[in-house]
């Protein structure tokens, strides 16, 4: 989805306080409304700034988090005429904040895009996505739709669980009221539980 800001007050202001209208693109998962990539472009003075955030799934947090934040600052043609062809924008430098270090090379005349502003920009992009995400969250919760979702999930799940092992720790308690007796086992770890496949329906038995 592309977006364009058209009315003040703007999300970002120029250093002199004048509104800076932003535009950009959001890549949104159609089903979940999850934002997977956000790009925000804004002209600040004679500098065109493009801030791109790419998100990825974090297995530890079990959620999508910013994985890469990239800023691209371009000085407008008018200011760069001395070196470059008139009427064109020229890429001066790309600053990446991918890890702990930041390329500190500064751009002459570039506005100071501090990390706070940069991170703010990434969040702003998400804020813009929120209504779209909410719109998408008109989720069908009818039994038919939910069973269909679960069916698809379980068929993939079965493959994902292949060759997965886990430790099983069980405590059993048996109470026989007529005899007034109760047996409790300690925590039994009889074997490793292996959901190598879903259990077979046939052959599952229960009774006395």
């Amino acid at each position, binding site marked *: 989805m592309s977006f364009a800001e058209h009315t003040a007050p703007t999300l970002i202001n120029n250093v002199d306080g004048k509104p800076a209208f932003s535009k950009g693109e959001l890549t949104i998962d159609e089903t979940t409304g999850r934002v997977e990539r956000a790009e925000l472009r804004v002209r600040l003075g004679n500098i065109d700034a493009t801030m791109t955030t790419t998100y990825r799934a974090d297995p530890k947090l079990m959620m999508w988090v910013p994985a890469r934040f990239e800023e691209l600052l371009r000085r407008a043609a008018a200011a760069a005429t001395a070196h470059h062809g008139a009427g064109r924008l020229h890429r001066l430098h790309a600053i990446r904040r991918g890890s702990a270090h930041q390329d500190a090379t500064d751009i002459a005349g570039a506005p100071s895009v501090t990390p706070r502003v940069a991170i703010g920009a990434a969040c702003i992009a998400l804020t813009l996505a929120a209504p779209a995400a909410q719109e998408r969250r008109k989720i069908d919760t009818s*039994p038919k739709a939910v069973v269909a979702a*679960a069916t698809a999930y379980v068929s993939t799940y079965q493959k994902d669980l292949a060759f997965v092992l886990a430790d099983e720790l069980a405590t059993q308690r048996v*109470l026989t009221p007529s005899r007034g007796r109760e047996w409790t086992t300690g925590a039994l770890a009889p074997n490793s539980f292996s959901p190598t496949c879903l259990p077979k329906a046939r052959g599952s038995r*229960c*009774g006395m």
Partner: protein
Amino acid sequence: MDGSPVTDADDIRSLIQRAPLARLGAIISEKNSRFNIGNIRRTFNEPTIALLVVNPVNQKRFKFDRVSVSSSSTSPVVTLKFTEHDRPTLVSGIHGEPVYTHGELDIDAVTGCIERSRIELSVGTVRASLTTAYAPDGKLNLWVPAAMSERYENIDNIFRQIITVETEYSNYRRFDTSVIIK
């Protein structure tokens, strides 16, 4: 057993080397069931058994009704009630007779992820209930069974017995192997 440690518990690694891979799950299930105590025999107590309810092969034998919808931070979780109404049933009695199950599933409406399941059945004088709670596992990036609670009650006047089992699962890992060709 009876105060003495069980010595023939199979090491999973040696079992994998010996047993045919296709039968591995069933073999482990059979071996684990030997450790069930009490007068109620059961081999259906697998944490993932309720997932079979939504398997396309079995699904048409079940009726589904929505019980409730609760909202989580990401998407709604729908509790569905299921009732088995046709044969062949998921679980059989000791003599092969059909045992109809019913229960509940908590399902993420967007992803279809099953977060909790409960399956219940009655066979003769035995009432059984098995609840599995799933939790996300960071290493596998999957929702896996975290805990299972079982309750069996024989309501027969003479053989009345109540069995409860609490099981926890941990240390999930993928069984990997590698081959070097020289």
